[in-house]
Protein backbone atom coordinates (compact mmCIF):
# COMPACT_ATOMS: atom_id res chain seq x y z
CA UNK A 1 0.00 0.00 0.00
CA UNK A 2 1.14 3.53 -0.75
CA UNK A 3 2.67 5.76 1.89
CA UNK A 4 1.53 9.32 2.27
CA UNK A 5 3.64 12.28 3.39
CA UNK A 6 2.01 14.96 5.56
CA UNK A 7 1.94 17.37 2.63
CA UNK A 8 -0.44 14.98 0.85
CA UNK A 9 -2.81 14.93 3.83
CA UNK A 10 -6.31 16.12 3.07
CA UNK A 11 -9.84 15.44 4.18
CA UNK A 12 -11.00 12.02 3.08
CA UNK A 13 -7.55 10.40 2.82
CA UNK A 14 -7.50 6.92 4.41
CA UNK A 15 -4.43 6.12 6.49
CA UNK A 16 -3.34 3.56 9.08
CA UNK A 17 -3.07 4.81 12.67
CA UNK A 18 -2.21 2.44 15.52
CA UNK A 19 -2.91 -0.51 13.17
CA UNK A 20 -6.47 0.71 12.50
CA UNK A 21 -7.80 2.19 9.27
CA UNK A 22 -8.72 5.85 9.69
CA UNK A 23 -10.06 8.68 7.55
CA UNK A 24 -8.68 12.22 7.79
CA UNK A 25 -11.41 14.73 8.60
CA UNK A 26 -9.28 17.85 8.86
CA UNK A 27 -5.60 18.73 8.48
CA UNK A 28 -3.97 21.85 9.90
CA UNK A 29 -0.44 22.97 9.04
CA UNK A 30 1.28 24.42 12.11
CA UNK A 31 4.58 26.25 11.82
CA UNK A 32 6.21 28.04 14.73
CA UNK A 33 8.23 30.91 13.20
CA UNK A 34 11.64 29.40 13.70
CA UNK A 35 10.74 25.88 14.70
CA UNK A 36 9.58 22.48 13.55
CA UNK A 37 6.48 22.39 11.35
CA UNK A 38 3.66 20.01 12.28
CA UNK A 39 0.52 18.58 10.75
CA UNK A 40 -2.29 18.46 13.25
CA UNK A 41 -4.98 16.12 11.96
CA UNK A 42 -8.43 15.15 13.11
CA UNK A 43 -9.12 11.55 12.13
CA UNK A 44 -11.99 9.11 12.37
CA UNK A 45 -11.16 5.54 13.25
CA UNK A 46 -13.17 3.60 10.66
CA UNK A 47 -13.46 0.55 12.91
CA UNK A 48 -14.73 2.27 16.03
CA UNK A 49 -16.08 5.53 14.59
CA UNK A 50 -14.17 7.44 17.27
CA UNK A 51 -12.67 10.80 16.35
CA UNK A 52 -9.18 11.54 17.61
CA UNK A 53 -6.51 14.16 17.05
CA UNK A 54 -2.94 13.37 16.13
CA UNK A 55 0.15 15.41 15.35
CA UNK A 56 2.86 14.53 12.84
CA UNK A 57 6.17 16.16 12.08
CA UNK A 58 5.93 17.84 8.70
CA UNK A 59 7.37 15.57 6.03
CA UNK A 60 6.72 12.39 8.02
CA UNK A 61 5.03 9.54 6.12
CA UNK A 62 2.33 7.09 7.14
CA UNK A 63 0.90 3.98 5.50
CA UNK A 64 -2.23 4.40 3.48
CA UNK A 65 -5.19 2.20 4.38
CA UNK A 66 -6.66 -0.03 1.68
CA UNK A 67 -10.18 1.21 2.20
CA UNK A 68 -12.80 1.27 -0.55
CA UNK A 69 -16.48 2.00 -0.63
CA UNK A 70 -18.78 -0.12 -2.78
CA UNK A 71 -22.49 0.00 -3.48
CA UNK A 72 -24.04 -3.34 -2.54
CA UNK A 73 -27.43 -4.90 -2.33
CA UNK A 74 -28.48 -6.22 1.05
CA UNK A 75 -29.65 -9.83 0.75
CA UNK A 76 -30.50 -11.33 4.14
CA UNK A 77 -29.22 -12.08 7.63
CA UNK A 78 -28.72 -15.56 8.98
CA UNK A 79 -28.55 -14.24 12.53
CA UNK A 80 -24.77 -14.35 12.68
CA UNK A 81 -23.83 -12.62 9.43
CA UNK A 82 -25.43 -10.06 7.18
CA UNK A 83 -25.08 -10.92 3.50
CA UNK A 84 -24.54 -8.41 0.69
CA UNK A 85 -23.93 -8.64 -3.04
CA UNK A 86 -22.22 -6.42 -5.60
CA UNK A 87 -25.01 -6.02 -8.20
CA UNK A 88 -22.68 -5.98 -11.24
CA UNK A 89 -20.53 -8.97 -10.40
CA UNK A 90 -22.81 -10.94 -8.05
CA UNK A 91 -19.83 -11.17 -5.71
CA UNK A 92 -21.06 -11.71 -2.17
CA UNK A 93 -19.75 -10.36 1.15
CA UNK A 94 -20.76 -11.27 4.67
CA UNK A 95 -20.55 -8.63 7.38
CA UNK A 96 -20.43 -9.44 11.08
CA UNK A 97 -22.34 -7.67 13.81
CA UNK A 98 -19.56 -5.11 14.42
CA UNK A 99 -19.85 -3.88 10.85
CA UNK A 100 -23.64 -3.51 10.87
CA UNK A 101 -24.14 -2.43 14.48
CA UNK A 102 -25.18 1.13 13.54
CA UNK A 103 -27.07 0.29 10.38
CA UNK A 104 -28.80 -3.05 11.03
CA UNK A 105 -32.05 -1.49 12.10
CA UNK A 106 -32.42 0.13 8.67
CA UNK A 107 -31.43 -2.85 6.51
CA UNK A 108 -34.17 -4.11 4.24
CA UNK A 109 -33.77 -6.84 1.64
CA UNK A 110 -32.95 -5.57 -1.87
CA UNK A 111 -31.94 -2.08 -0.67
CA UNK A 112 -28.69 -0.70 -2.06
CA UNK A 113 -26.27 0.24 0.73
CA UNK A 114 -22.69 1.49 0.78
CA UNK A 115 -20.19 -0.95 2.21
CA UNK A 116 -16.79 0.23 3.43
CA UNK A 117 -14.19 -2.49 2.94
CA UNK A 118 -10.75 -2.63 4.51
CA UNK A 119 -8.39 -5.14 2.91
CA UNK A 120 -11.49 -6.53 1.24
CA UNK A 121 -13.25 -7.20 4.57
CA UNK A 122 -16.45 -5.34 5.50
CA UNK A 123 -15.79 -2.55 7.98
CA UNK A 124 -19.10 -0.73 8.08
CA UNK A 125 -22.38 -0.36 6.21
CA UNK A 126 -24.09 2.91 5.39
CA UNK A 127 -27.78 2.45 4.63
CA UNK A 128 -29.49 4.55 1.93
CA UNK A 129 -30.41 8.05 3.17
CA UNK A 130 -34.09 7.15 2.86
CA UNK A 131 -35.69 3.75 3.40
CA UNK A 132 -39.29 2.60 3.16
CA UNK A 133 -40.38 0.32 5.97
CA UNK A 134 -43.72 -1.22 7.08
CA UNK A 135 -45.15 -0.53 10.54
CA UNK A 136 -45.48 -3.79 12.48
CA UNK A 137 -46.69 -2.36 15.74
CA UNK A 138 -48.06 0.93 17.08
CA UNK A 139 -50.92 2.07 19.34
CA UNK A 140 -54.12 2.65 17.41
CA UNK A 141 -54.47 6.39 16.85
CA UNK A 142 -57.56 8.36 17.79
CA UNK A 143 -60.23 8.23 15.09
CA UNK A 144 -60.29 11.39 13.03
CA UNK A 145 -57.02 12.77 14.33
CA UNK A 146 -55.06 13.73 11.22
CA UNK A 147 -53.27 16.73 12.57
CA UNK A 148 -49.98 14.99 13.01
CA UNK A 149 -49.33 16.85 16.23
CA UNK A 150 -47.89 15.01 19.19
CA UNK A 151 -46.82 11.64 17.90
CA UNK A 152 -46.30 8.10 19.16
CA UNK A 153 -43.69 5.37 18.84
CA UNK A 154 -44.02 2.81 16.05
CA UNK A 155 -42.06 -0.40 15.53
CA UNK A 156 -41.00 -1.08 11.95
CA UNK A 157 -40.37 -4.38 10.14
CA UNK A 158 -36.64 -4.19 10.79
CA UNK A 159 -37.13 -3.67 14.52
CA UNK A 160 -36.37 0.06 14.42
CA UNK A 161 -38.57 2.23 16.60
CA UNK A 162 -39.36 5.73 15.32
CA UNK A 163 -41.64 8.53 16.37
CA UNK A 164 -44.62 8.83 13.99
CA UNK A 165 -47.76 11.00 13.75
CA UNK A 166 -50.86 9.73 15.54
CA UNK A 167 -52.69 8.82 12.32
CA UNK A 168 -50.16 6.15 11.32
CA UNK A 169 -51.58 2.59 11.47
CA UNK A 170 -50.12 -0.92 11.58
CA UNK A 171 -49.36 -2.19 8.05
CA UNK A 172 -48.62 1.20 6.55
CA UNK A 173 -45.42 1.83 4.58
CA UNK A 174 -43.38 4.82 5.84
CA UNK A 175 -40.46 6.81 4.45
CA UNK A 176 -37.70 7.26 7.03
CA UNK A 177 -34.52 9.38 6.98
CA UNK A 178 -31.81 7.01 8.24
CA UNK A 179 -29.35 9.83 9.03
CA UNK A 180 -31.63 11.39 11.64
CA UNK A 181 -33.77 8.32 12.29
CA UNK A 182 -36.87 10.42 11.72
CA UNK A 183 -40.20 9.81 10.01
CA UNK A 184 -40.53 11.73 6.73
CA UNK A 185 -43.90 10.77 5.25
CA UNK A 186 -46.17 7.89 4.30
CA UNK A 187 -44.84 6.05 1.26
CA UNK A 188 -46.90 4.93 -1.70
CA UNK A 189 -47.03 1.17 -2.11
Amino acid at each position, binding site marked *: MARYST*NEFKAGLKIMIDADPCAIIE*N*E*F*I*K*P*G*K*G*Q*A*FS*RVKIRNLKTGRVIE*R*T*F*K*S*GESVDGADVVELDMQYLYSDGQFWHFMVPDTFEQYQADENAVIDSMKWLKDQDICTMTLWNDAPLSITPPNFVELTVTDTDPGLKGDTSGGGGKPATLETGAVVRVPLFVQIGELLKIDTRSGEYVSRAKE
Partner: protein
Amino acid sequence: MTEVVWQPSCELEQLQQRAKMLTLIRRFFSERDVLEVETPLLSQATGTEPQLDFFSSEYHRHPESQTLFLQTSPEFAMKRLLAAGSGSIYQICKAFRNGESGRFHNPEFTILEWYRVDFNLQKLMNEVAELLSAVLSISSVKKISYSELFFQKTGLNALEYSPKTYQAYALSQNIPDAVTLCEDNHDLWLDFIFSHKIQATLSENSIYLVYGYPASQASLARINIDNPAIADRFEVFVNGIELANGFFELANATEQASRFEQEINFRRENKRPSVVKDSRFLAALNAGLPDCSGVAIGLDSLLMLLTASSTIDDVIAFPVNRA
Protein backbone atom coordinates in the same frame (compact mmCIF):
# COMPACT_ATOMS: atom_id res chain seq x y z
CA MET B 1 -13.63 19.58 -19.25
CA THR B 2 -13.07 21.13 -15.85
CA GLU B 3 -13.78 24.80 -15.48
CA VAL B 4 -10.75 27.08 -15.27
CA VAL B 5 -10.79 29.18 -12.12
CA TRP B 6 -9.34 32.57 -13.00
CA GLN B 7 -10.96 34.75 -10.36
CA PRO B 8 -9.13 35.95 -7.23
CA SER B 9 -9.86 34.03 -4.03
CA CYS B 10 -10.27 37.21 -1.99
CA GLU B 11 -12.82 39.99 -2.05
CA LEU B 12 -12.03 43.38 -3.54
CA GLU B 13 -12.40 44.81 -0.05
CA GLN B 14 -9.37 42.82 1.14
CA LEU B 15 -7.26 44.30 -1.64
CA GLN B 16 -8.35 47.78 -0.59
CA GLN B 17 -7.56 46.99 3.05
CA ARG B 18 -4.12 45.75 2.02
CA ALA B 19 -3.39 48.94 0.09
CA LYS B 20 -4.51 51.03 3.08
CA MET B 21 -2.34 48.98 5.44
CA LEU B 22 0.72 49.42 3.21
CA THR B 23 0.14 53.19 3.05
CA LEU B 24 -0.09 53.36 6.83
CA ILE B 25 3.11 51.32 7.26
CA ARG B 26 5.05 53.48 4.80
CA ARG B 27 3.88 56.64 6.54
CA PHE B 28 4.88 55.15 9.93
CA PHE B 29 8.47 54.64 8.77
CA SER B 30 8.73 57.84 6.79
CA GLU B 31 7.76 59.79 9.96
CA ARG B 32 10.62 58.01 11.75
CA ASP B 33 13.20 58.53 9.03
CA VAL B 34 13.63 54.85 8.35
CA LEU B 35 14.74 54.30 4.76
CA GLU B 36 12.78 52.01 2.46
CA VAL B 37 15.07 49.64 0.54
CA GLU B 38 14.89 46.79 -1.96
CA THR B 39 17.13 43.74 -2.04
CA PRO B 40 17.21 40.78 -4.46
CA LEU B 41 14.56 38.08 -4.32
CA LEU B 42 16.92 35.83 -6.29
CA SER B 43 20.29 35.27 -4.69
CA GLN B 44 23.31 32.97 -5.01
CA ALA B 45 22.96 31.89 -1.37
CA THR B 46 20.16 31.38 1.11
CA GLY B 47 19.56 30.79 4.81
CA THR B 48 20.83 27.55 6.33
CA GLU B 49 17.98 27.24 8.82
CA PRO B 50 17.04 23.57 8.69
CA GLN B 51 13.33 24.22 9.28
CA LEU B 52 13.03 26.37 6.18
CA ASP B 53 12.71 24.76 2.79
CA PHE B 54 13.60 26.91 -0.20
CA PHE B 55 12.84 27.19 -3.91
CA SER B 56 15.76 27.23 -6.29
CA SER B 57 16.04 28.16 -9.94
CA GLU B 58 18.57 28.01 -12.75
CA TYR B 59 20.10 31.19 -14.07
CA HIS B 60 21.43 30.82 -17.62
CA ARG B 61 24.50 32.94 -17.81
CA HIS B 62 25.85 31.60 -21.07
CA PRO B 63 27.73 29.43 -21.36
CA GLU B 64 27.39 28.47 -17.69
CA SER B 65 24.41 28.06 -15.50
CA GLN B 66 24.12 29.08 -11.86
CA THR B 67 21.67 28.13 -9.12
CA LEU B 68 19.81 31.07 -7.65
CA PHE B 69 17.59 30.77 -4.57
CA LEU B 70 14.31 32.55 -3.99
CA GLN B 71 14.77 34.27 -0.64
CA THR B 72 13.16 32.81 2.48
CA SER B 73 13.68 36.27 4.03
CA PRO B 74 15.54 39.47 3.04
CA GLU B 75 17.64 39.31 6.21
CA PHE B 76 21.14 38.69 4.85
CA ALA B 77 20.97 41.30 2.11
CA MET B 78 19.53 43.90 4.48
CA LYS B 79 22.32 43.27 6.96
CA ARG B 80 24.84 43.83 4.18
CA LEU B 81 23.27 47.26 3.66
CA LEU B 82 23.51 47.93 7.40
CA ALA B 83 27.18 46.93 7.40
CA ALA B 84 27.69 49.30 4.47
CA GLY B 85 26.37 52.17 6.61
CA SER B 86 22.75 52.49 5.46
CA GLY B 87 21.41 53.41 8.89
CA SER B 88 17.92 52.19 9.89
CA ILE B 89 16.10 50.54 6.98
CA TYR B 90 12.87 48.74 6.16
CA GLN B 91 11.58 46.64 3.31
CA ILE B 92 8.23 45.27 2.16
CA CYS B 93 8.83 42.28 -0.10
CA LYS B 94 7.84 38.77 -1.05
CA ALA B 95 9.49 35.81 0.65
CA PHE B 96 9.26 32.16 -0.41
CA ARG B 97 9.14 29.01 1.71
CA ASN B 98 8.70 25.70 -0.01
CA GLY B 99 6.14 23.27 1.37
CA GLU B 100 4.43 25.80 3.63
CA SER B 101 0.78 25.72 2.84
CA GLY B 102 -2.20 25.76 5.14
CA ARG B 103 -4.84 27.94 6.70
CA PHE B 104 -2.19 30.46 7.80
CA HIS B 105 0.48 29.79 5.18
CA ASN B 106 1.08 30.29 1.50
CA PRO B 107 4.52 29.37 0.07
CA GLU B 108 4.84 32.91 -1.33
CA PHE B 109 3.98 35.64 1.17
CA THR B 110 4.63 39.25 2.04
CA ILE B 111 7.11 40.28 4.70
CA LEU B 112 7.71 43.61 6.37
CA GLU B 113 11.22 43.59 7.76
CA TRP B 114 13.02 46.44 9.45
CA TYR B 115 16.27 47.15 11.30
CA ARG B 116 16.91 49.88 13.80
CA VAL B 117 20.52 50.89 14.39
CA ASP B 118 21.37 51.40 18.09
CA PHE B 119 18.02 50.01 19.24
CA ASN B 120 18.10 47.36 21.93
CA LEU B 121 15.42 44.68 21.96
CA GLN B 122 13.15 46.56 24.38
CA LYS B 123 13.16 49.67 22.22
CA LEU B 124 12.33 47.70 19.10
CA MET B 125 9.56 45.79 20.90
CA ASN B 126 7.99 49.14 21.81
CA GLU B 127 8.13 50.28 18.22
CA VAL B 128 6.57 47.01 17.01
CA ALA B 129 3.76 47.48 19.51
CA GLU B 130 3.24 51.06 18.29
CA LEU B 131 2.97 49.99 14.67
CA LEU B 132 0.64 47.08 15.41
CA SER B 133 -1.57 49.23 17.64
CA ALA B 134 -1.88 51.72 14.81
CA VAL B 135 -2.70 49.10 12.18
CA LEU B 136 -5.02 46.93 14.27
CA SER B 137 -6.48 49.61 16.57
CA ILE B 138 -5.63 47.47 19.59
CA SER B 139 -4.33 49.37 22.59
CA SER B 140 -3.68 46.53 25.05
CA VAL B 141 -0.02 45.47 24.97
CA LYS B 142 1.31 42.64 27.14
CA LYS B 143 4.98 41.85 27.54
CA ILE B 144 5.95 38.56 29.07
CA SER B 145 9.07 36.42 29.06
CA TYR B 146 8.96 33.06 27.31
CA SER B 147 9.77 31.08 30.43
CA GLU B 148 7.27 32.97 32.59
CA LEU B 149 4.53 32.45 30.00
CA PHE B 150 5.45 28.79 29.67
CA PHE B 151 5.30 28.30 33.41
CA GLN B 152 2.00 30.19 33.75
CA LYS B 153 0.28 28.11 31.09
CA THR B 154 1.81 24.69 31.72
CA GLY B 155 3.64 24.68 35.05
CA LEU B 156 6.77 23.55 33.16
CA ASN B 157 10.24 25.01 33.23
CA ALA B 158 10.97 25.85 29.59
CA LEU B 159 14.68 26.39 30.17
CA GLU B 160 15.33 23.02 31.73
CA TYR B 161 14.25 19.78 30.10
CA SER B 162 12.97 17.12 32.44
CA PRO B 163 11.69 14.04 30.56
CA LYS B 164 9.42 12.95 33.40
CA THR B 165 7.60 16.22 33.99
CA TYR B 166 7.30 17.00 30.28
CA GLN B 167 5.86 13.55 29.58
CA ALA B 168 3.48 13.75 32.54
CA TYR B 169 2.28 17.11 31.26
CA ALA B 170 1.64 15.70 27.76
CA LEU B 171 -0.37 12.79 29.16
CA SER B 172 -2.41 15.03 31.45
CA GLN B 173 -3.15 17.41 28.57
CA ASN B 174 -4.36 14.76 26.16
CA ILE B 175 -1.44 15.12 23.77
CA PRO B 176 0.22 11.72 24.31
CA ASP B 177 1.58 11.76 20.75
CA ALA B 178 4.06 14.42 21.92
CA VAL B 179 5.93 11.72 23.86
CA THR B 180 6.75 9.61 20.81
CA LEU B 181 7.13 12.51 18.42
CA CYS B 182 9.47 14.64 20.53
CA GLU B 183 11.45 11.85 22.21
CA ASP B 184 14.27 13.62 24.08
CA ASN B 185 14.50 16.64 21.82
CA HIS B 186 13.94 19.62 24.13
CA ASP B 187 13.39 22.14 21.31
CA LEU B 188 10.86 19.89 19.66
CA TRP B 189 9.00 19.63 22.97
CA LEU B 190 8.98 23.42 23.31
CA ASP B 191 7.70 23.88 19.73
CA PHE B 192 5.05 21.20 20.23
CA ILE B 193 3.71 22.51 23.53
CA PHE B 194 3.90 26.15 22.53
CA SER B 195 2.05 25.66 19.24
CA HIS B 196 -0.54 23.22 20.58
CA LYS B 197 -1.23 24.52 24.06
CA ILE B 198 -0.01 28.07 24.54
CA GLN B 199 -0.32 30.03 21.32
CA ALA B 200 -4.11 29.80 21.09
CA THR B 201 -4.47 31.19 24.61
CA LEU B 202 -2.71 34.44 23.65
CA SER B 203 -6.00 36.02 22.68
CA GLU B 204 -8.24 38.66 24.34
CA ASN B 205 -7.48 41.23 21.65
CA SER B 206 -4.07 42.09 23.08
CA ILE B 207 -0.69 42.46 21.46
CA TYR B 208 1.50 39.87 23.18
CA LEU B 209 5.24 40.42 23.07
CA VAL B 210 7.01 37.26 24.19
CA TYR B 211 10.74 37.74 24.77
CA GLY B 212 13.71 35.82 26.13
CA TYR B 213 13.46 32.68 23.98
CA PRO B 214 15.59 29.72 25.10
CA ALA B 215 19.17 30.06 23.87
CA SER B 216 18.77 26.86 21.82
CA GLN B 217 16.20 28.76 19.72
CA ALA B 218 18.33 31.86 19.27
CA SER B 219 18.39 31.66 15.48
CA LEU B 220 20.11 34.92 14.46
CA ALA B 221 19.74 36.64 17.83
CA ARG B 222 22.44 37.38 20.37
CA ILE B 223 22.64 35.36 23.53
CA ASN B 224 21.56 37.48 26.48
CA ILE B 225 24.55 39.11 28.12
CA ASP B 226 23.31 38.50 31.71
CA ASN B 227 21.67 35.12 31.23
CA PRO B 228 23.30 32.68 28.80
CA ALA B 229 20.22 30.42 28.99
CA ILE B 230 18.16 32.85 26.94
CA ALA B 231 18.48 34.70 23.65
CA ASP B 232 17.58 38.30 22.89
CA ARG B 233 14.75 37.28 20.65
CA PHE B 234 11.03 38.05 20.78
CA GLU B 235 7.88 37.00 18.99
CA VAL B 236 4.53 38.74 18.70
CA PHE B 237 1.12 37.07 18.95
CA VAL B 238 -2.31 38.60 18.48
CA ASN B 239 -5.47 36.56 18.97
CA GLY B 240 -3.54 33.30 18.71
CA ILE B 241 -1.80 34.23 15.46
CA GLU B 242 1.98 34.46 15.28
CA LEU B 243 2.80 37.79 13.67
CA ALA B 244 6.43 38.72 14.11
CA ASN B 245 9.86 37.57 15.09
CA GLY B 246 12.58 39.94 16.24
CA PHE B 247 16.22 39.83 17.33
CA PHE B 248 18.93 41.87 18.88
CA GLU B 249 21.07 40.98 15.89
CA LEU B 250 24.04 38.71 16.17
CA ALA B 251 27.03 40.65 14.83
CA ASN B 252 29.87 38.28 15.64
CA ALA B 253 31.00 36.74 12.37
CA THR B 254 32.77 33.80 14.01
CA GLU B 255 29.72 32.83 16.03
CA GLN B 256 27.49 33.29 13.00
CA ALA B 257 29.74 31.02 10.93
CA SER B 258 29.66 28.34 13.60
CA ARG B 259 25.84 28.51 13.82
CA PHE B 260 25.73 28.10 10.03
CA GLU B 261 28.05 25.13 10.38
CA GLN B 262 25.74 23.46 12.94
CA GLU B 263 22.70 23.99 10.75
CA ILE B 264 24.46 22.67 7.67
CA ASN B 265 25.45 19.56 9.64
CA PHE B 266 21.89 19.15 10.88
CA ARG B 267 20.66 19.36 7.28
CA ARG B 268 23.15 16.69 6.23
CA GLU B 269 22.29 14.34 9.11
CA ASN B 270 18.56 14.74 8.47
CA LYS B 271 18.89 14.43 4.70
CA ARG B 272 17.49 17.88 3.99
CA PRO B 273 18.58 19.80 0.86
CA SER B 274 22.09 21.07 1.36
CA VAL B 275 23.05 24.73 1.28
CA VAL B 276 26.28 26.65 1.49
CA LYS B 277 27.17 29.48 3.84
CA ASP B 278 26.41 32.91 2.42
CA SER B 279 30.00 34.15 2.13
CA ARG B 280 28.99 37.69 1.17
CA PHE B 281 26.87 37.97 4.29
CA LEU B 282 29.68 36.62 6.49
CA ALA B 283 32.15 39.04 4.88
CA ALA B 284 29.78 41.90 5.73
CA LEU B 285 29.63 40.76 9.36
CA ASN B 286 33.42 40.62 9.36
CA ALA B 287 33.55 44.18 8.12
CA GLY B 288 31.27 45.12 11.01
CA LEU B 289 27.51 45.15 11.56
CA PRO B 290 26.43 48.11 13.70
CA ASP B 291 24.57 47.25 16.92
CA CYS B 292 20.97 46.90 15.81
CA SER B 293 17.69 45.14 16.38
CA GLY B 294 15.53 43.81 13.60
CA VAL B 295 12.10 42.27 13.16
CA ALA B 296 10.01 40.63 10.45
CA ILE B 297 6.21 40.75 10.34
CA GLY B 298 4.03 38.55 8.15
CA LEU B 299 1.78 41.06 6.45
CA ASP B 300 -0.72 38.46 5.21
CA SER B 301 -1.27 37.29 8.79
CA LEU B 302 -1.60 40.91 9.86
CA LEU B 303 -4.23 41.48 7.19
CA MET B 304 -6.06 38.33 8.33
CA LEU B 305 -6.27 39.82 11.82
CA LEU B 306 -7.25 43.23 10.53
CA THR B 307 -10.12 41.83 8.48
CA ALA B 308 -11.03 38.95 10.83
CA SER B 309 -10.41 36.42 8.06
CA SER B 310 -10.14 32.75 8.90
CA THR B 311 -7.81 31.67 6.09
CA ILE B 312 -4.90 33.27 4.26
CA ASP B 313 -6.67 32.59 0.95
CA ASP B 314 -9.22 35.21 1.98
CA VAL B 315 -6.60 37.96 1.96
CA ILE B 316 -4.44 37.00 -1.05
CA ALA B 317 -5.69 37.56 -4.60
CA PHE B 318 -4.08 34.44 -6.03
CA PRO B 319 -2.82 31.90 -3.49
CA VAL B 320 -0.58 29.12 -4.79
CA ASN B 321 -3.44 26.92 -6.03
CA ARG B 322 -4.67 29.78 -8.24
CA ALA B 323 -1.33 31.38 -9.07
